């Protein structure tokens, strides 16, 4: 009883810390465009959302997917195609992209959750490579040229996304909305069962949970949010290319999540900002970018395995 009570108290305490952290993050993100280039911020937000979606699956479900680029990229292509060729307004284009990623996630999930560990990872990798080759060959994706000059258009008919700051507000809203959805999911009974499955799957089964249903749902949710990130990204950059479906993107999201802190709530956001900032601000160092990125990864794994936010949380004795 004492332990249980202690645990509840700790959760309550961490809950407060998380609310404070959320408010700080929101405040920073609202103030940021005054100092930092907004397009860069939007790119970082899209990747932060992508990393959060990935973290939902890996950090809380314990499922290592090496195929998440497929969801990001497919959604990007579908929403770019919908906005450019079909002339759909941006909100429908984003919804379309997200729906495509969700469906794809359902297919991937149904096949992949039958296996565990490395086999699960390999199945997702194989499936995402199939998606990559489809995108390379399909006429509508434009091969290695990608879909270019995607119109940003008017959201809901009256929000002009061609204004950079308006677009930033929309992207920030999408990000915060999806972030809260993930937060709610993790703290719901569903999230608790997911964590139980991660910790000890046979025990969860013996308690009567249909673990496959939970895993599939988590997988589809993660795919859908990755798709939301990809669809938003294609409107921000007005293009969709093979970069987003390439397997190295699946690797990058692992790097972001690990660097920020696996299984933490804010870690993937920090990790994504760090990686995107490196790619952006170190661009003039040419070949050194990838080397620096690799070195940081090695240092992170060797010295602070919990990631930036994980270590910070340990110092503050709060789950962030």
């Amino acid at each position: 009883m004492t332990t249980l009570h202690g645990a509840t108290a700790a959760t309550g305490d961490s809950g407060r810390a998380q609310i404070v952290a959320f408010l700080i993050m929101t405040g920073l993100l609202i103030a940021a465009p005054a100092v930092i280039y907004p397009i860069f911020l939007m790119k970082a937000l899209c990747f932060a959302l992508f990393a959060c979606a990935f973290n939902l699956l890996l950090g809380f479900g314990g499922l290592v997917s090496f195929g998440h680029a497929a969801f990001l990229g497919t959604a990007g292509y579908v929403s770019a195609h919908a906005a450019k060729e079909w002339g759909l307004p941006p909100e429908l284009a984003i919804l379309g992209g997200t729906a495509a990623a969700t469906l794809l996630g359902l297919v991937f999930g149904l096949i992949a959750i039958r296996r565990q560990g490395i086999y699960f990872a390999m199945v997702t990798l194989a499936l995402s490579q199939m998606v990559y080759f489809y995108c390379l060959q399909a006429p509508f994706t434009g091969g290695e040229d990608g879909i270019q000059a995607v119109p940003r258009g008017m959201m809901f008919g009256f929000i002009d996304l061609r204004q950079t700051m308006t677009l930033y507000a929309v992207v920030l809203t999408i990000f915060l909305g999806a972030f809260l959805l993930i937060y709610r999911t993790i703290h719901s009974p569903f999230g608790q069962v997911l964590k139980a499955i991660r910790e000890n799957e046979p025990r969860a089964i013996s308690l009567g949970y249909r673990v496959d249903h939970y895993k599939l749902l988590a997988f589809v949710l993660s795919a859908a949010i990755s798709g939301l990130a990809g669809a938003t990204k294609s409107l921000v950059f007005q293009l969709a290319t093979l970069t987003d479906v390439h397997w190295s993107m699946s690797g990058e999201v692992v790097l972001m999540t690990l660097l920020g802190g696996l299984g933490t709530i804010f870690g993937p956001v920090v990790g994504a900002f760090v990686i995107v900032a490196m790619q952006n601000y170190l661009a003039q160092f040419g070949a050194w970018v990838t080397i620096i990125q690799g070195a940081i990864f090695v240092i992170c794994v060797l010295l602070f395995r919990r990631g930036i936010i994980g270590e910070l949380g340990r110092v503050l004795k709060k789950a962030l």
Partner: protein
Amino acid sequence: MTIKRMLGTAAAVLMAAGTAQAQMSDGGIKIGVLSDMSSLYTDLSGAGSVLAARMAVEDSGIAGRSIKVEIVSADHQNKADVGSNTARQWYDVDKVDVIVDTPNSGVALAVNEISREKNKVFLVSGAASSDLTGSKCSPNTIHWTYDTWALANGTGNAIVKTGGDSWYFLTADYAFGHALERDTEAVVLKNGGKVNGKVRHPLNNADFSSFLLQAQASKAKIIGLANAGGDTTNAIKQAAEFGIVKGGQNLAGLLVFLTDVHGLGLPTAQGLIFTEAWYWDMNDANRAFAKKFSAANRGIHPTMIHAGVYSAVTHYLKSVEALKSDADGKAVVARMKATPTEDTLFGKGTIRADGRKIHDMYLFEVKAPAESKAPWDYYKLRATIPAADAFRPVADGNCPLTKS
């Protein structure tokens, strides 16, 4: 080494002499070299393009006329989103007036759209896609050195005319490869040649043996390589192992650069035929440029892309100076189109309304090791394709700018 070169660039950036003239926006001209600094196109563009741009600025003597010119550079990592982010940031925050080079058609098409939107100038030397002066043409873009149509046409046309009338295609199985194969095949057929067959191979293929054996068995005189980068060099290497060139067949590369030939070495690459816009060992002016360039570039000699960057920046600076302003990208490009081009590397030329720079193209054959007299002495000229025939006719390009 790289860092040293970056510092060198930074130093060049500061070579402002005297005060900047008031008419240039933000106190001077700022040139952004957006290129591949770390991956497969590094040697054929990359840091060499930054160097070429710097040499063009130095040779123009513009600093002596109190106009400040800065050069910045960045790596797009062959990712369209990284390239597009850099281009936007350069235009919005860093006040870059013109972006040059940009190999990788995907990135170039993205920068093409952003330059149009922000009314800046985009001078393409590295990218190949002929869409840049076709359906995607822009009043802010000039495509300088070469394009896919010119390569396919030059190689296809000249080879058939010099006796290579039967072809077999080895094609990378994706949009770019299909386009190259389609364009070249059309040229071959038009000139009375025939296509004995074709085979598609997957992208980034490691083993070409079965494809090469089919090509060998086809008895075609020419094996056309409708692929790029690593696929081309792999195919050439393995063809040498099968003794295909020694057996009397010739390989025709559709996208080959001087640095590729250097990497392959003459014993492997000999007999390869392809089209380029510029070669360092063609006249004294080119040789002088190459000597200065290679001395500052680890001995790597300039490719046609480097020469194109030099030529484009030279013409840009001339036009901006004549216009006395760099603020309006469309006006600068219009001025560049209206003025005939002239520089030491490409000689006299013109720029068409669709943004296509026009000059002669050349069909080269790689020398046998015995013919090569000096390091980097790799090509012999097989034919000159006159400027009038070298590029796609305006009417076939479907460029919206040319329909009024």
